[in-house]
């Protein structure tokens, strides 16, 4: 009986719940902040919950928010599997959206042709913006965290310039306000809506299909095997004949491509024009950063990213209603997301310790004593 209980407690499946415990810790931390600020945390969290799940429309908005998060998280999963930290999803999303929007505004072709082409172009735009830091890391040993952050800032300025200048809506150029936004895409190019009165769009299907596809690529193809091998041990991979540098570029390229596609979908599925508010996160609404949080929370597993993106989509939608109901600024959720990241990566040590315990348990249960002693001595 005790053995049985031990097996359950030490089973690998329990590890899957560690991110949940980490999120719980972040929520408790957030409750303390709310208390210090003089807000009842229960009221605030209830407002969040109702705002995210309270009615059909809230639920749809949660899913709409989750779509870019899922796509970006999928990209992050690919990069992190190769031990490449891609912080550049913000910039990759912006560049993908810029190129896809420019394409949609320039051509006058039938919708069935333009939509898939625009998605591919967004994909390629993000891929380009991701491949640059990838190549810099692979061939010049430049820290990809720093280069991707810089690429974000460059993309933001590029967007501010284009949306406020060459790509600006001609109507805005003559208007007084001069909002930084492009003209509206022809209605033939809009991604179909799934439940017409609501904003739920076909981007959801694209994202879900890609989640399965990315899962398949990472775990069931040679490409995915190489990427994972490079992440686990670059030296052994090289010895085994894998071109490590090339895998690093591919991982960041694919990672960026996912973010670029998310940008294109945001334009073609939701706003039908590219629009910002002058702040760096004006277009992305921080999806590039929240996508990292999502991927980590989903255990860096493409299928885990699906519920994780739903969870963080809910958090973002809930934050807005919390702001309305309790006057707590929605930036609270940004702070909360930061804590989720910290707690999730900190929880990794528990996984490590449990892994060790598991090994010891199997070793002590082994029938032949001599090798068991040697092995436990090494551990």
């Amino acid at each position, binding site marked *: 009986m005790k053995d049985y209980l031990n097996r359950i407690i030490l089973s690998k499946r329990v590890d899957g719940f560690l991110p949940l415990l980490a999120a719980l810790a972040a929520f408790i931390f957030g409750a303390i902040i709310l208390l210090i600020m003089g807000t009842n945390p229960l009221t605030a969290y209830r407002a969040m919950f109702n705002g995210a799940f309270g009615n059909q429309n809230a639920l749809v908005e949660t899913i709409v928010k989750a779509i870019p998060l899922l796509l970006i998280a999928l990209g992050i999963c690919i990069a992190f599997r190769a031990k490449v930290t891609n912080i550049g999803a913000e910039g990759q999303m912006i560049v993908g959206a810029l190129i896809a929007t420019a394409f949609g505004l320039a051509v006058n072709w039938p919708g069935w042709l333009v939509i898939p082409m625009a998605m591919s172009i967004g994909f390629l735009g993000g891929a380009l913006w991701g491949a640059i830091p990838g190549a810099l890391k692979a061939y010049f040993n*430049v820290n990809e965290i720093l280069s991707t952050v*810089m*690429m974000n800032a*460059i993309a933001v300025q590029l967007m*501010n310039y284009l949306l406020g200048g060459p790509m600006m809506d001609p109507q805005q150029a003559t208007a007084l306000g001069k909002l930084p936004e492009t003209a509206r895409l022809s209605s033939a190019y809009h991604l179909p809506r799934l439940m017409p009165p609501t904003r739920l769009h076909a981007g959801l299907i694209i994202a879900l299909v890609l989640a399965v596809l990315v899962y398949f690529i990472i775990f069931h193809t040679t490409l995915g095997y190489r990427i994972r091998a490079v992440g686990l041990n670059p030296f052994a991979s090289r010895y085994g004949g894998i071109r490590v540098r090339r895998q690093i570029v591919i991982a960041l390229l694919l990672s960026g491509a996912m973010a670029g596609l998310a940008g294109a979908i945001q334009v073609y599925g939701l706003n039908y024009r590219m629009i910002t508010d002058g702040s760096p996160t004006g277009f992305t609404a921080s999806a590039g950063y929240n996508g990292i949080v999502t991927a980590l929370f989903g255990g860096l597993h493409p299928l885990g990213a699906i519920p994780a993106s739903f969870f963080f989509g809910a958090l973002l939608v809930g934050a807005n209603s919390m702001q309305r109901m309790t006057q707590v600024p929605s*930036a609270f*959720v940004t702070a909360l997301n930061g804590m989720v*990241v*910290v707690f999730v990566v900190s929880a990794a040590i528990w996984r490590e310790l449990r892994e060790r315990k598991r090994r010891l348990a199997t070793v002590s249960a082994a029938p032949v004593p001599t090798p068991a002693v040697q092995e436990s001595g090494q551990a």
Partner: protein
Amino acid sequence: MDSSQILSVTVIVGILSAGIRLASPYLFAAIGEMFGQRSGVLNLGVEGQMLMGAFFAFYYTVQTGNPWLGLLAAVIVGAVMGFAMAVVSIRWRAVQGISGIGFFIFGVGMSELLFKSLLGEVKIINNGFNPINIPFLSNIPFLGPIFFQQNLMTYMAFLLVPISWFILYKTTLGLKIRAVGENPHAADTLGVNVAGIRYLTVTMGGVMSGIAGASLSIANLNVFQENMTAGMGFIAVALVYFGGWRPLGVMFGALLFSMVMALQLFMQVFNVTIPPEFAIMLPYILTIVVLVLTVGRVRGPSALTEPFVRE
């Protein structure tokens, strides 16, 4: 405005003087980060720590009217965030690249949250650290306005360079820091408290980042806005690489960046025909170029980002 006016003496003095002033946040943050990295911990939360430091310094300066209390608040909040990063990366051995990003996101959100709920709107203060003219020296033509009419925090930032050089290379503590960053196991064998040294450097790094934020909000700009650091914290981390993990190198890197920033500000003022967005891009492009040119030329601490486990 034609080119002869752009290159006039007053303008050059103005650019150089602004360049020196703008170097101070980079210097504080990068030197703090340098100590952390020298001991083997990569703290990527600098940006978040700077934002929190900037907010608390500004808020308490507004509340008390005393910039020293504002600075103290920045020191405390920097220490708290630095210590948290230390616990996460030393005791819990979390992946440093990612936990730092967590603290960055936290700092962005938390400073905006506090700003919106405590201040609500952008204010400008006039009781921050104002420029101090150093007697006699400030009257020297050209050099006076460039070097000796700066605010107190700028003087402190540049004073920090020789001090940190002395600590790192001429004291036992500095030797221990370098040993822990190069070979923690050897250092441990010789009785150096590896974790203790790292707690110290990472916490102090947080303090320095907090001060860096304060130098923005209560000395250089006298204003707080959400996300006002705009990547400076990450540039500071890049400067550590660029400076080859040496105080003097970090200082030259900081000056290079601040001069480019100053040039860019003046370009905007004088309506040079380049769109301002491209001028703002310059420091970020420069960072990437600089990283390409420097990485590989100098070798970093061997144990950087590796948690220490005694075997």
